């Protein structure tokens, strides 16, 4: 049940993010009067500048989805090899080194770290070693960095369990080499464990992206993001523009709830399949 609700919510969110921008007009064009309540022409109403909120919400959902997916993917790309390498060197110095580095990014909570890293550079693009890095890319990188310890720990822990399990010894004794073990046996087994966490991480990433936008550290204008929309909408509530605060907020809640529910279900399934 919860599983199906989660799939539906996440599906609706993804659908809005993927199809919405195609269906809707430009999210930046001034297509209507200011603060029009929802109507057939503007199903989500219009914002304080007269832009279509459906187009903006859809575009914001897309931004949230793209940023958080990219961040989680980037984090996995860094964390999984690091975690596997650490597990392979379990207890020896490469393991220690990886875990110390991971630990040192955990002196502050993840979201604070992201705020910190973004806040340091100020908003706007920067040059890193001569390469132009857009604000969006920096946000992705910072959120990703926040997830690296999370995934590296999971990858390491489950790889250690795998490497110490009996079947691995059986395969070693049977002459299966370490590389083959790591790539063909351990990594594929670590993958579902991570997979279940990916959705939960996505939920956090969507939240974080919104929070950054809310603090004004997020994806810059004119791209709407869900966090921006919510931040802007607060004041409109005073004028009775309930749709402005409610709809983008509910879309955000739907996305996060969907990720959480589906992620929970995936984790449950994993536990059950391992118990069987």
């Amino acid at each position: 049940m919860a599983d199906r609700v989660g799939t539906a919510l996440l599906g609706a969110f993804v659908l809005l993010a993927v199809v919405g921008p195609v269906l809707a007009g430009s999210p930046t064009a001034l297509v209507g009067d200011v603060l029009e309540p929802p109507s057939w022409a503007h199903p989500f109403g219009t914002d304080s500048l007269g832009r279509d909120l459906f187009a903006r919400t859809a575009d914001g959902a897309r931004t949230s989805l793209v940023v958080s997916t990219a961040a989680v993917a980037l984090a996995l790309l860094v964390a999984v090899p690091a975690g596997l390498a650490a597990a392979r060197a379990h207890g020896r110095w490469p393991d220690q080194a990886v875990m110390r580095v991971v630990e040192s990014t955990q002196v502050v909570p993840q979201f604070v770290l992201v705020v910190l890293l973004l806040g340091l550079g100020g908003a706007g693009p920067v040059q890193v070693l001569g390469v132009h890095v857009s604000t969006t890319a920096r946000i992705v990188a910072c959120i990703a960095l926040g997830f690296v310890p999370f995934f590296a720990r999971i990858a390491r822990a489950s790889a250690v369990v795998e490497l110490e399990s009996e079947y691995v010894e059986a395969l070693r004794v049977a002459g299966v080499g370490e590389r083959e073990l790591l790539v063909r046996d351990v990594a594929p087994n670590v993958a579902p464990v991570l997979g279940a966490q990916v959705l939960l991480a996505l939920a956090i990433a969507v939240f974080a992206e919104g929070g950054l936008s809310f603090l004004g550290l997020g994806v810059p204008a004119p791209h709407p993001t869900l966090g921006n929309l919510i931040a802007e909408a607060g004041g409109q509530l005073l004028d009775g523009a309930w749709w402005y605060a409610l709809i983008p907020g509910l879309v955000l809640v739907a996305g996060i709830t969907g990720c959480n529910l589906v992620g929970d279900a995936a984790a449950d399934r994993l536990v059950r399949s391992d118990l069987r």
Partner: protein
Amino acid sequence: MIRFALHRAASLLVTLVVAVSGLFLVLHASPGSPLTNLAPSVAADPEARAAVARETGLDRSMAEQYGDFWASLLHLDLGTSLYDGSSVSEAIASAAPVSFQLGLMAAAVAIGPGVVAGVVAARRRGRPADAAVRVLSVVAISVPSYWLAVLCLVLVGERWPDLVPAAGGYTPFGTDPVASVRSLLLPAVVLGLGGFAMVARSLRSSLVGVLDGDDVHFARAMGMPEHQVLGRIALRAVAPSTVTVVGLLVGGLVSGTLLVESVFALPGLGQLMVTAFVRGDHPLALGTALVTAVVFLGLNLVVDVAGVALDPRARRRVAAGRT
């Protein structure tokens, strides 16, 4: 036990030193130098820029600045704000109690009802109460605090102005405890909601596991009343894992203060930090980050030690030196 705590504290200290040094370097390599925050008409003049840099000590080598930073840190002096020249330590000292009280109240909101909900759900597994707790906790964990805060501020604040913080954000607890608690109640509920969900969910699932265990079965088979089964076996068994969740919750609370304090205009550490970063106020940013890290790591240490203290098996491992 004490040795374990000291050992953990020492290793955290090393991590902290490394992290603060990293922060210092990043901060000073960042493009947001205070020089760029000068009035453009002043900043445009190279002579004026150089003079300001000399005045604020920014023209010295990074190594010198780093050395000075640690030297003054040892005297608990975090320097002065680049903007108003006020003492960073004092700014933090006046902001910390707000965040501390907010965090404490939010933790109470999270842990008290969270434990009750988790126990009720586990004991009434599969029944409506369980379903209600599960739905509530999923929603609570998924509703972003900043959205809820905005809604509450307007919707609740309009009707019960006393429930949202007063202008200036905060009545110190010492001045008027009732007003102080009342004014932080709404932010604390908003902040604590996610933690409530975490505690309730984790407690429910671990309790369900424990209540299915052989020891509970044996105890019931030997006629132990249900409340004793819960108190003597089940809750004791899930205490360490619950404490771990509380550790995660600490991170959520510290993060959440950034957002919630900003919406409710509470003069706490979170808002101070955001302000510092938005302005590129290096000493203040570094100071708030440092204090946040110390608080966060300290709480984690407490949680770690509590986790070990509550789990005799872990206590034994620790005593055997296998940390």
